[in-house]
């Protein structure tokens, strides 16, 4: 319970978790009953390459504090998708930088079906960051 932060609108973390790797990975954390902050919202995705650059920026504009893309990494079952995603994110990071959004708010990581420790680390790290940064500032939201 101790590491459950308040579910305040200031600190929401969106997790895009791949259907074949990270989403079952998050379930595996659940099966182990390992607690983590409750301000995390996991969306099941087939491959995060589906999201255009604007999706991420819009999320920040709407007030999402941090986004973790939990992909399958090199184990991605869709040929070429992970590479395309990395390329897209390079672009998103560039835009975020240009607009003055803290780059640490967006994170790409590979989580497997049993990567419990890695999952918890990612979530806790992002939560610590969001507690420090708060939701995107007016300036950041406007820029996004």
């Amino acid at each position, binding site marked *: *319970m101790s590491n*459950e932060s*308040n*579910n305040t*609108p200031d600190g*929401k973390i*969106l997790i895009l978790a791949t259907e*074949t790797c990270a989403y*079952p990975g*998050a*379930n595996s*954390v*659940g*099966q182990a*009953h*390992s*607690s*983590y902050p*409750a301000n995390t*919202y*996991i*969306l*099941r*995705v*087939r*491959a995060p*390459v*589906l*999201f*255009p*650059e604007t*999706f991420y920026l*819009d*999320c920040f504009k*709407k*007030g*999402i504090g941090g986004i973790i893309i939990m992909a399958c*990494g*090199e*184990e*991605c*079952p*869709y*040929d*070429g*998708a992970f590479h*395309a995603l990395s390329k*897209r994110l390079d672009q998103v990071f560039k835009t975020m930088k240009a607009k003055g959004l803290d780059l640490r708010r967006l994170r790409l990581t590979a989580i497997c*079906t049993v990567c419990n420790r890695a999952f918890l680390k990612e979530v806790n790290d992002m939560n610590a960051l969001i507690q420090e940064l708060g939701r995107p500032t007016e300036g950041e939201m406007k820029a996004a």
Partner: protein
Amino acid sequence: MSSNKKESTSEPRVGVYICHCGGNISDHVDVEQVAENIRKIPGVVVSHTNTFMCSDPGQELIQEDIKSGKINRVVVASCAPSLHELTFRNAIKRADMNPYLYDHANIREQDSWVHHGDPATAKATTLVAAAVAKTKRLEPLDPIRVDARNHVIVIGGGMAGLRAALDLSSRGIAVSLIEKSPFLGGQAANLDKLVPTEASAGDLIKQLAQAAVEDPNIQISTCSQIVGFEGYVGNFKVTVQTHPPDADTRRQIIRGITSDKSQVGKMIPFVGYFPSAVPTSEQTRIIDTGVIVFATGFKTYTPRQGEFGFGDFPEVITLPMFIRHMAQAAANDKHLSFNGKKIRRVAMIHCVGSRQIPGIHEADENDYMNEYCSRTCCSATLRAAMEIRENFPKTQVLDFYRDIRTYGRGQEDYYDRASESNVLFFRYEPEDSPLVEKNSSGDFPLKISVKDTLTFGEEIEADVDLIILSVGMEPNPITGLVDMMKLPVGSDRFLQEVHPKLRPVELANTGILLAGTCQAPMDISETCNAAQAAAVKASALLGKGYVELDPFVAGVDLAACSGTGACVDVCPVDAVKLKPVKINGEEVERAEVNPAICTGCGVCVAECPHNAIDVKGWTLKQYEDMVDAIVAA
């Protein structure tokens, strides 16, 4: 589907069903409170809770609301969707509603099991609200139905390929078995007695290969490879090229056999089963097939020049070389000898080319490392050690291992028996691997030294006559096929299944299945397990004469599409094409998706400048609405 039309055109009326899961959820989440919160969302017409939503009464609750016309969308909030998504989809279908007008909120694994008290209840409300938001945007979908050919191509004629071919045939499915060499049996042909049953590898191969050759439903093509591929599950078109063995080294080894017709139908030890005379001319043909099973197997690791003295000293050999030597030696010789010399002491080194560690081991010329355990070598090494001790008690055996991994039924016995028969064990750390040197003095050709962790780091040095390297497995090089069929490969270079636990023999490319060691190191029992699983999966796919595919594939909004072709350029599986269409009398090009090829990865969605392409059931707009619901909660 008239009801579908009604469902898609009428205003969404969402029914929400929240599960207690016995107490698994309701002990931590105030489910009644969640139901009440959700009831206030516009469009939600019922919000129920139930002790077990997956039970018959739980499912009936949904079905009654559908039948009475109260609802036309369903949200179930319960355990992980992988467990019961299908259960609820089927329940909805039985109530005559489109099963894809349903979404699932995971409030057990991703909420009540990881959070407690008010935050858990608040999060459950948010997750359900997000699912409601998505559900309102759902459209009725139909599974994609395509005719399927009752035929399977099996690539590779090792144990996996033979087992799969026979099982498929027994289900009435015609099989083409494509083997690149002139022989059947694969790597198992290089083995003798097998762990853990002591069965003869040659006998097992012969049993399967003969049955396959005699089966009129199985067409075997040796000296053959796949050179062309197109199509989709149920309707693949595969080009197979057969050619006489070329003049490479392999042919040198087999020339005597393949030109001798009397060898046809025989199991030739350490070569393979010879099913038919080799072709004398090149031939290319196209085979139409419904499913493809990969059984392309492995190759053994070849140690680098100088790795533990390999290539530098003729007395350093690999385990497969030794197995072959033993099979021939055991029959004739009184004492173990090698290259005409008496072997008084032999050293065996485990994990050669397996479990490599960056920073300690050297990557190969392509910068690859084999970080995995090859799983079969520990047992095979101990078996060989015991065979030496039992047949040649005067020959001492020293065994240098990192860990002993004799997993599986009957395999630990080999370790026990090897210990009992005085095999001497030494354990090494990877950073202090055994050192093999030429012996400058004495009458032993080699010297091996190691820091032995079993004696707390004592430096051990021993003179030996022979060193056997337990080489591991590497996937067979099939880059051509991987590129041609766009197959997913893991970082270990073995073919990568969709899900290691829930869909272990399927590739993401629907209709292409995995059997045996092309997927990971396995012994023959596991290889045959996987082959039988692939055969059953293939027969399940083809059994109805058509295949039904998930409708979660890309769909084009023709009103928005302007034919830029951005989607065509990025699609990794060539599922989108530009097709000429007439709009207002004018001929233009618009994107068209082949749903049977599309994997639904969505790479095209982000690339379309007009948002004219989306993955059905997982649209961008649905995600945006879910984010809005999360932010608003």
